[in-house]
């Protein structure tokens, strides 16, 4: 009897050992290829952000309409890539975790939203609002950082949306984006000079924070090392994309705006580029899953490789949901704020609602994939 139990134990343990080894070896390879993919996207974001910073500097040197447009275009281009990198959030990595030195990731200084524009500059109804008009406020990088969400979560002083507001201004119409005049940046008067300084500093800060992320994930970067030696990298990878799909993009950014119906509740409300944000976030989810680079480069193995080996039906389900969601996003009418103002049964709103539902299905599928691979996937933890 004891002999049989021993044999069974031996058999079970060898099966267990074989499987866990194979599984952990695959996961290890995935963690490496994922790190390369993350590095690839942050590098690209750093290049594009540097280009934006350069365009802003040129604009401030020669403030004319043409240079303002170029600065705005550079912001849009940089943001297209940054949106993809949001798939690397939500698991305590370099972007939004705390490292071994107790330093907190820069997410709150890069992409805080919603933003109370009157905290930074003049708004309709209050021409003296904000830090720029407060002459006793010394505009430096450190004061700007200290002011970020210091008294209220909406008091955002820096990051993408602060720069967006500084370039576009308030969006007061459903037909166009914000129409800040170039003359706001002609030097010579005190307030304009402060605005110029503010734009210069926030742009430099954003570049600095993106550069930091880029170095964290570079080949011997601290962040990459920490990730590769973490206990459950597979769980982290899927938690990032599941949370982006099932929480941040679907609920926080689309559904909440649909429910409030307030045109100002779109994510990039000054530039009317919310549709680009949604697409970029979606691309982040898809590219992480499939291990795809910005020009279709392959980073393998990818999460999809491991999942399709384990459960091909689930993989097909995920691919199918990705395709449907992609179509839904295409059908959201532009600009987003105008869509929000439409009736519930408008085509744009229906497409946006479908996007939300399918992103939730996608998140559920990804959580299921985590279960199959024995990875811990928790949304929004």
């Amino acid at each position, binding site marked *: 009897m004891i002999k049989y139990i*021993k044999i069974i134990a031996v058999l079970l343990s060898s099966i267990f050992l074989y499987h866990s080894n194979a599984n952990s070896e695959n996961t290890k390879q995935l963690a490496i290829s994922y790190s390369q993919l993350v590095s690839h996207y942050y590098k690209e974001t750093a290049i594009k952000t540097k280009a934006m910073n350069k365009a802003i500097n040129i604009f401030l040197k020669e403030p004319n309409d043409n240079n303002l447009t170029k600065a705005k275009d550079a912001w849009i281009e940089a943001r297209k890539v940054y949106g993809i990198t949001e798939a690397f959030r939500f698991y305590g990595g370099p972007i*939004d975790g*705390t490292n071994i030195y107790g330093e907190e990731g820069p997410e709150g200084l890069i992409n805080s939203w919603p933003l109370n524009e009157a905290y930074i500059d003049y708004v309709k109804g209050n021409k003296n609002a904000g830090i720029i008009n407060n002459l006793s406020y010394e505009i430096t990088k450190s004061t700007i950082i200290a002011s970020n969400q210091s*008294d209220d979560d909406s008091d955002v002083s820096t990051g993408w949306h602060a720069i967006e507001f500084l370039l576009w201004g308030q969006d007061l119409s459903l037909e166009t984006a914000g129409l800040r005049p170039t003359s706001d940046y002609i030097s010579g008067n005190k307030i304009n000079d402060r605005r110029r300084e503010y734009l210069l500093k926030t742009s430099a800060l954003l570049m600095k924070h993106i550069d930091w992320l880029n170095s964290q994930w570079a080949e011997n970067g601290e962040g990459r090392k920490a990730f590769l030696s973490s206990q459950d990298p597979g769980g982290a990878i899927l938690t990032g994309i599941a949370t982006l799909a099932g929480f941040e993009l*679907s*609920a926080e950014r689309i559904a909440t705006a649909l429910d409030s119906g307030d045109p100002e509740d779109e994510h990039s409300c000054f530039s009317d580029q919310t549709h680009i944000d949604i697409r970029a976030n979606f691309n982040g989810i898809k590219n992480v899953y499939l291990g795809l680079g910005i020009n279709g480069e392959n980073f393998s193995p990818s999460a999809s490789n491991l999942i399709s080996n384990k459960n091909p039906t689930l993989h097909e389900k995920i691919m199918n949901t990705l395709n449907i969601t992609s179509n839904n996003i295409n059908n959201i009418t532009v600009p987003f704020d105008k869509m929000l103002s439409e009736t519930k049964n408008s085509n744009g709103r229906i497409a946006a609602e479908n996007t939300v539902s399918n992103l939730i299905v996608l998140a559920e599928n990804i959580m299921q994939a985590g279960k199959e691979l024995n990875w811990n996937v928790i949304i929004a*933890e």
Partner: protein
Amino acid sequence: MERNNSGIIFNINIASYLLIIFFTFISSALSEESSFTMDKEISVKRETREAFSAPIPNLSLSKMRFFTGGRHLFRRSWTPAPSSVKSLDGLGPVFNRVSCSGCHVKDGRGSPPPEGTDKFRSMVIKLGIIDNNALKPDPKYGFQLNDKSILGVPYEGKAKIHYDSKTIAFKDGSIIKLAKPKYSFFSLSFGKLNKNTKFSGRVAPAVFGLGLIEAIKEQDLLQNADPEDKNQDGISGRAHKIIDIVTNTEKIGKFGWKATRASLLHHISGAAFQDMGLTSSFFTKQNCMEIQIKCKEQINGGTPEISKKQMERLLIYMQTLAPPKQRGLKNDAIIKGNNLFLKIGCSNCHTPVYKTGEHKGHPELSNKIIKPYSDFLLHDMGPELDDGLIEGAALSSEWKTPPLWGIGLIKVVNRHTRFLHDGRARSIEEAILWHGGEAKASRNNYLKLKQNERNYILKFLNSL
């Protein structure tokens, strides 16, 4: 044959090795269970500024949009009526802040203004006259000083705080200085406060874990209550029984510094009304006293100003924000601190563990192990913390034991370490030393500890 044998022996070795791992795992799981860590479905591991802002991990995905919708309302600024955004107008006419997150920054804890300034950003001053054991409003300023107002309406008045220094000595000879607040009022728009008006400073509490507190069974609270101090340990502790206006039944108050409210819905409606001037189904009239004519003349932002639908979302947000997990469970100093915390009597009121009962709105919150470190009962905290203001059946010296979960993350989330109801304590240690009345014995025990032992306790508290 030889080879086979050695192969089996080799594998048996692995098997026994696995068995050892298996038993180690089981025993460590058991010891973790005996120390009752919070259930992982309802607590989160974050140590960033976002530590208090996550939904409970088991919140169903279909509820996420209500959670984020609530968060949106929590963060958005309200504007005076009429305004282009109809859903968010109705601020004031008099108020303290324009958004919930203005006081509860990052869902965390408020602090007093810098000494001698009127910059009350996350703290309010409650007012009232005690008449026949009941609290009546100050005839000109009501139950709370609103230091801001919409255009064309006078604000009620301003206040500032100065501190007197007070020295306390530990048994080992080292000393510490405490700061006792002194309030003064100025720029009062309608003249002086009534001569009998009492006042009480209150910082904004952190707002996570509230749904779980709501789900704690009343019988579990009553089990700890000992209003006549029958066990003669010097700690009475009584439940604050109130009539809950949401259910119209008698319940135990769990929310507020004096446990004045049992339903979270009632509690947040009260905050929106008192702090932001927003009417809702429980607070239907504008927040203007008789003498404040301009205040009364203003048009409202709808009846009520916060719609039922908006309030539902805010409620879901408040109910499902997750408490943070404890850190460093295996750290030696923290374990020692935990033992000392129990030994010197802190846990007599700061009850560590509960298993929640059924939560009607959210089954996600039901039957979960939680560690709030509070008995949610009223205790006499001694003359030093007695500011003369009563609330309901809570005497002016009585305060509800505040939960301690997340206390070590306040410095990360809110970048300060101000504690107690009025934020007078500038560190966790100062907060301990302000304990008097029923907590005096524990405070004295703390004073007798050696420096390294005190540090263990503080390390433990900072791990919560």
